[in-house]
């Protein structure tokens, strides 16, 4: 593992907090992806519209 080979002291607290912060940062990203999945489920997929609702969905 590279932290064992590090020539500077990475610090236990500094390694552990990265995992915590990265998880917190990931929460809104996770929710955003869930919300867009949910909206896709409700409104149907945007990417591959059928010819009919392609016309209908355009404003």
């Amino acid at each position, binding site marked *: 593992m590279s932290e064992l080979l590090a020539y500077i002291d*990475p610090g236990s*607290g500094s390694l*552990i907090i990265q995992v*915590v*912060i990265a998880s917190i*940062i990931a929460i809104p990203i996770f929710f955003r992806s869930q919300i867009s999945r949910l909206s896709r489920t409700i409104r149907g997929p945007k990417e591959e519209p059928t010819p009919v609702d392609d016309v209908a969905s355009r404003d």
Partner: protein
Amino acid sequence: MTSPPATESPAVERDPGSWRDPGGFVYRRDGVLYRQIGPSAIDDWTAFVASGLAERLIADGRLIGHDDAPLADAATDDARAVIRPRPIEFVSYPYEWTFGELQDAALLTLDIQRAALDAGWTLKDASAYNVQFRDARPVFIDSLSFEPHEDGTPWVAYRQFCEQFLAPLALMARRDIRLAALLRANPDGVPLDLAASLLPWRTRLDLGLLSHLHLHASSQRRHAADDDDGQSAKSARISRQRLTGLIGNLRSTVAKLRWSPGGTEWADYADHTSYSDAATVAKERLVRAAVERVAGERIWDLGANTGRYSRIAAETGRRVLAWDVDPAAAERTYRGVRSEGRGDILPLVLDLANPSPGIGWAGTERRSLLERADPDGILALALVHHLAIGRNVPLPMVVDLFARLAPWAIVEFVPKDDVMVRRLLATRRDVFPDYTLDGFRAAATTRFEVVSEEPIEDSPRTLLVLRRR
């Protein structure tokens, strides 16, 4: 692994600041700068050079370039590779940088870490001393800082980055710009618990500072006494995707820190001089002619303010270091230079009455300013009265320092009847009987020959061009 101690060639002069990483070091031989790569780092180095990442970073100017050198140029016989890094014109240190320079150096480090992660690499250190300024833009100089990233491992240099960049930047932006001085006092970086205790409480409302600084400091405190042989640290796993998110968040935390120059001593000085328009034109003309006399292209403008005369010196084809005691003035110059995209003026912060000492191991790891000083000429425009009257430095000592710095000195002498000196003397006893043009000339001629001496039209001031004896 045991191996006989490496023998060192006698012509080698090791860089006093290059010994922390056992993978290699920087040295000079016959004045030429080299970096050698040792047995423990050779595999990573070979892979890094072949990876395409090195080439990309060098091509876009973020990483210093190098040429391969023969093993015969190595400093010790255990070398596995030798390179000649492109030299840096003037080595400056983080405690001499303006806020914007330290911030740009921090962003460069994070952008490199991001690019490295994308390519499966990581920075094994994130020291601010790994960044230098070349053509007034930051460049990463430690080509040996890269190692392959094993997916799942956190960033080993995260702590170092926060201590060397984030903490001082946050303190400068959110508490007081003068806390840049902590960088000089702590060459290994500002301890996070110290930064957390000095920062205003409301910095906890900034999610970035809360996480990377305050919570980070608490986590360090909580785990400092862990007695589990590093087990909890070893079990800290983080996917590359999440690590990339963390670096992005750290980047926006750094980028969001703002400090606007102003409200300090000198930033508005240029707008508040005693100069008439005619005098300004006359001074510019005299300074230009004086700079053109200097043999050599390196000019140090001591007391550059916002760089008006640094620009004039640069227009004559000189390379200028624009020093000023005021971080706001230097920051303004930096922003101007950066937005104009010019590389011939580098603004830096200096108190000439207290220049950077040698610091770090043996007091030589980061060299003193005087040891690094090698200008061909100095500009000391409207500066002597600040030293002689503002700081009580006797004129012969001012002249001695000028003579130590450079073979040419261009000095604007401001007499006592000038409004700026009257202001300095307004609230104190005049204990400076020698502070006259004659007194200055007498002091100057002990070390210099007066090449020219011309009154500045429409002002009581005089411009002297001095050449060291």
